[in-house]
């Protein structure tokens, strides 16, 4: 039981200890209104006692992760029969936006749209009607590093779902007329990016922080690159980058192990063996507090800041994770929100998180504040950043953070598609099929010494910061 939630003691206890002591020391002085208020104040809500008597006890989600395999492919699988649905999550590694040929910027986003626009014996209308009428979801997306996809279907329509999906993998149409529509949409999206200050900021952030690296590019490409993309380009990219050797697959839901293995066998046929994609070399992202202001008139200035972090399998990962959790990732209870939002009302919210991509391990964060508040919010961010590096965190903060992260463990099992996506990330980060069994130990075992060493190492340099709307051209005049 924590001290703060100690059970309120009875009147007799206080009378004997406090009042008699007070009488002895101060005579009658303590019989003032303060004491009166003290006794009339309702007792603190005894959270620990409420939980201790609750019949709702600790249960751990039965999360057995199996490895299933065909002769060429393997997948992580979690059997879950609560609902008659199946979710498949997969990604082709090193086939994302950063791997696009330089003059074909935007091709992965276009490919994602084109794959479901007619395949095999179905044209675009037939394909999408069949999906919509049966609750079958087939979709693709480009991420920075990988080309990702998912398939979800109600168990009773498995046959239709598999047939549709096989057609996408074997024989997408890449219809020219539909390609024209997608290109038209991409060009419009490029324009619309300029409407929203947060999108302008993100593009500028990439240009400044990842200068000279493929990560600096606009994920939607340029007007020229998008207009130049042809059916053949899509076909080439598909053949070169969507292969067996860079494919990670996860399955979760209403299947037996045997059924899951059969599904795996059926879904990913006819893929080339080898992909052209290569993992990008890690970037040196050491920050030095550089500021990159962008002029624009906004209701609020918006900032995106970052410093070098660490990769997922580095020994520093969990210590840094805990330090950052306490600093900026634990919502309204995080240090940054408490100081900048709750106490000073300077922003609607400020956050940080550990961002890990193939080439960039970062501590990243953001906030927005009206121009007159912006400098004050930024100064408080810097002050808290330095305080974390210099003083670290307390044992009490670490204990609370551990408690929080252990208590929220089961929330990751809310939705079957989230479970499948999690299994994919476990494979991408090479955490092992037994990661879920070990995760709570990883949290428990982090020591205060390790966290504070990580805080000192990673929060030593101030972050670089890119912001938009704090100054306008009118201010300059």
């Amino acid at each position, binding site marked *: 039981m924590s001290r703060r939630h100690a059970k309120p003691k009875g009147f007799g206890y206080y009378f004997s200890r406090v009042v008699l002591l007070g009488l002895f020391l101060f005579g009658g002085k303590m019989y003032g209104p303060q004491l009166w208020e003290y006794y009339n104040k309702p007792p603190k809500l005894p959270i620990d006692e409420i939980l201790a008597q609750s019949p709702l006890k600790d249960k751990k989600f039965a999360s057995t992760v199996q490895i299933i395999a065909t002769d060429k492919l393997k997948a992580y699988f979690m059997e879950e029969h609560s609902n008659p649905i199946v979710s498949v999550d997969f990604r082709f590694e090193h086939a994302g936006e950063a791997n696009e040929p330089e003059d074909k910027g935007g091709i992965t986003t276009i490919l994602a749209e084109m794959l479901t626009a007619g395949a095999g014996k179905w044209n675009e209308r037939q394909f999408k009607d069949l999906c919509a009428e049966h609750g079958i979801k087939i979709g693709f997306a480009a991420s920075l590093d990988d080309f990702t996809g998912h398939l979800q279907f109600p168990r009773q329509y498995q046959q239709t779902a598999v047939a549709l999906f096989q057609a996408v993998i074997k024989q997408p149409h890449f219809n020219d007329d539909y390609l*024209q529509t997608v290109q038209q949409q991409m060009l419009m999206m490029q324009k619309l990016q300029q409407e929203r200050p947060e999108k302008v900021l993100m593009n500028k952030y990439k240009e400044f922080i990842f200068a000279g690296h493929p990560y600096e590019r606009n994920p939607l490409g340029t007007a020229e690159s998008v207009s130049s993309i042809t059916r053949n380009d899509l076909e080439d990219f598909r053949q070169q980058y969507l292969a067996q050797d860079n494919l990670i697959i996860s399955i979760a839901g209403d299947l037996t192990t045997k059924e899951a293995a059969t599904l795996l066998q059926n879904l990913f046929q006819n893929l080339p063996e080898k992909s052209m994609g290569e993992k990008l070399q890690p970037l040196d992202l050491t920050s030095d507090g550089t500021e990159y202001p962008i002029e624009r008139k906004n209701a609020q200035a918006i900032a995106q800041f970052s410093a070098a972090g660490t990769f997922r399998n580095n020994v520093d990962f969990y210590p840094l994770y805990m330090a950052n959790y306490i600093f900026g990732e634990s919502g*309204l209870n995080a240090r940054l929100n408490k100081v900048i939002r709750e106490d000073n009302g300077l922003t609607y919210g400020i956050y940080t998180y550990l961002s890990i991509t193939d080439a960039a391990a970062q501590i990243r964060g953001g906030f927005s504040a009206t121009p007159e508040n912006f400098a004050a919010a930024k100064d408080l961010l810097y002050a808290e950043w330095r305080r974390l590096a210099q003083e670290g965190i307390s044992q009490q903060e670490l204990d609370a953070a551990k408690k929080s992260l252990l208590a929220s463990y089961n929330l990751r099992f809310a939705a079957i598609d989230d479970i499948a996506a999690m299994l994919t990330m476990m494979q991408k980060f090479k955490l092992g099929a037994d990661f879920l069994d070990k995760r709570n130990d990883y949290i428990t075992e982090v020591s205060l010494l390790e966290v504070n060493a990580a805080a000192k190492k990673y929060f030593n340099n101030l972050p670089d910061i890119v912001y938009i709307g704090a100054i306008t051209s009118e201010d300059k005049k």
Partner: protein
Amino acid sequence: MIRQQMNKLVLGALLVVFLIQPAAADLFKATEFTLSNGMRGVVVENHKAPIIKHMVWYQVGAVDETPEQFGLAHLLEHLMFRGTTRVENGEFNRIINELGAESNAFTGYDVTAYHQFADIKQLEALMALEADRMQNLNLTQQDFDSEQKIVFQERKQVVENNPAAAFNERFSMMLHGNSRYGRPIGGFDADIKGLTLAQAQQFYRQFYAPNNAILVLSGDIDAPTAQQLAEKYYGIVSPKNITRAEPDEKFTPFAADLTMALPNIQAPKIIDKYLLPNYRQLSGNVYAYAVLAEYLGGGETSALYRDLVLEQKVAVGVSVDFHFVTRGNSVFSVSMLPAEDISPVEARELLYAAVTKAMSGLTTEKLKQTQRKMTADLVYVNDNPEDAAYWIGTMLSNGFNLSDIENYAANIEKINLKDVQAAYRAVMQASKTSGTLLPENYQAPAPRQTVSNGGKNEQKTR
């Protein structure tokens, strides 16, 4: 009603179908109860993972504010995180974090909801905290001042940083006229700045009580335990005498136009909204409008998307939506993002030509296909326990019955061609606000030389 409209042959065929098929299963198989103090509760059992969504929906929102209180319901929602006589300021967020719970709240025109998502073993602590702030809110001037500033920043971030915000707010005022539904939920700058601590305390005392709240529990708990715990924590809170006026949204029929050119807008957008009676006045036909919206503009398999975006390529996006889960008037909206070489005037002509064409091409078979699309995804709603909680909470707190939700699939499926056609006629006769958002110094492009099919030759609707 609907069956009566059918001829006997069809009725006979339907009855046979009904006899041989089991009755459609309830969507959530939820359990309802009412506590001794009048608080309502709903439980949806979902035993997949040991987790729970805990929500309390107060039947109070922006529409309950008087003009000098605009923004108060939302500011009070923020203040509810600031401490009670039993939980000091800052402690609520600290405890929630230690419980590993995700916690938030939101304010609408008609409702205010507080919710957490957590491990099932934490539920009693969450209920104790929520029941505590239902009755013991204890605000200082300092907390109020900080939270007023945060709410001001929220408006700047969430609303005003969007370059279309000024358009959206003015559009809403034209559509809803003097009604509270026509003003932003959180109020304008001056509204927020004019609010006082005393007003917040008074609003809290007036509307926050168990008999004005609905508890929704969705997750790993059985209904009897849920009810027992609800009684233990919420059942002991004293009820209040609460009177809530029905939203007053009388209007005289009108047709209005709003065109605005705003900085940072890069491409024209058009949006038309039609004001219709609320769902009670529309009776069972409310679902006919939902089916109509889905058929016309529900995603990339819809009639308008296929015609305007895929075939004619005169738009890059089109969408139709029917908003009816509100105590106020329902709203039918049609919006379109024209292709670069199509002017807004031309776009609107093409849009309504396509609507007319879609309606004349609507057959029973196409209608059934739309209905299948609308019900096919229901298989997923019992997956994530959060989905059931939001759906049920939204509908119940706006005055729907649990049976309306449980029978959702049947409500959609029973709509026939005549219902949808009647809904369409009603929309076209309803009061309409036409909106056009333009870039500054916008120059309309020259009309297209060729249009890929005969859309332009169709008769205009309006």
